[in-house]
């Protein structure tokens, strides 16, 4: 892990691949969290909160 990282170089953009992996992971996690259905139905104890 101590050898130099590979880099992504495009124009003036120069980013290390590990950083790109982290960024890609974040975008993937965010997208997945939005899209993947959240478990649990309406719930057997659902009722309006009583005052």
């Amino acid at each position, binding site marked *: 892990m101590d050898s130099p990282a590979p880099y992504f170089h495009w124009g003036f953009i120069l980013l290390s691949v590990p950083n790109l992996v*982290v960024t890609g*992971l*974040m975008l993937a*996690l*965010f997208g997945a*969290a939005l899209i*993947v259905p*959240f478990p649990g139905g*309406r719930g057997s104890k659902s009722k309006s909160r009583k*005052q």
Partner: protein
Amino acid sequence: MSRSQAAVPAGGGWTGAFRRQIARRLPLEELLPTNQPAYVHSWVYLFGAITIAALIWVVASGVVLAFFGPQWWHHSSVGRFFNSIHFWGVQVFFIFMVLHLWTQFWAAGWRDGRGLTWVIGVVTFLASVVAGFTGYISQQNFAAQWIAVNAKDAVNATGMGALFNPLNFGQAYGIHVMLLPASIVVLVAAHIVMVRMKGIVRPIDAPTPGVADASPSNEMAS
């Protein structure tokens, strides 16, 4: 509303008044509720809790590193392991803090009087960036040398060089292990208390509660 605590009787001086305020604003069952709105139904709601979990391990591993001293994490394999936990904990902390920020931005989590909650959250993010910076220059390795030598120019250019010297390990280390973790924990606690006091913000366009014409809840331009 139901309360498990008895109402705090009048009187009792400052202590009584303080207790009544807390009982009014954040009784125990609001601080530690056992239910939540049904609209809290998305994986994005986990990002904040995961951020807190990461902070717990960053602080815990940091305590161990501080206890054994700055040479330990270079010379001992156990020390290096705790250094690694601290390093990856910080990565996880920032990843999920930013995901939590994205969530709150796109959900406009500041609505309905929650502006201060947002402000505290962003300030916590900034404090974390500074904590990360002081941590990086406290490592006592090559990266610490290089970051300090470069950062000094930005610190000096803004006049902050009169207060903080990035090349001074003692100063950076003390700020990193004591001042900033304490500040961040206080900020996070305030943030959580705000969230618990106000409750989870309703979805955008949900009807405003208790308003006769049931107009959508907003603090945004229509």
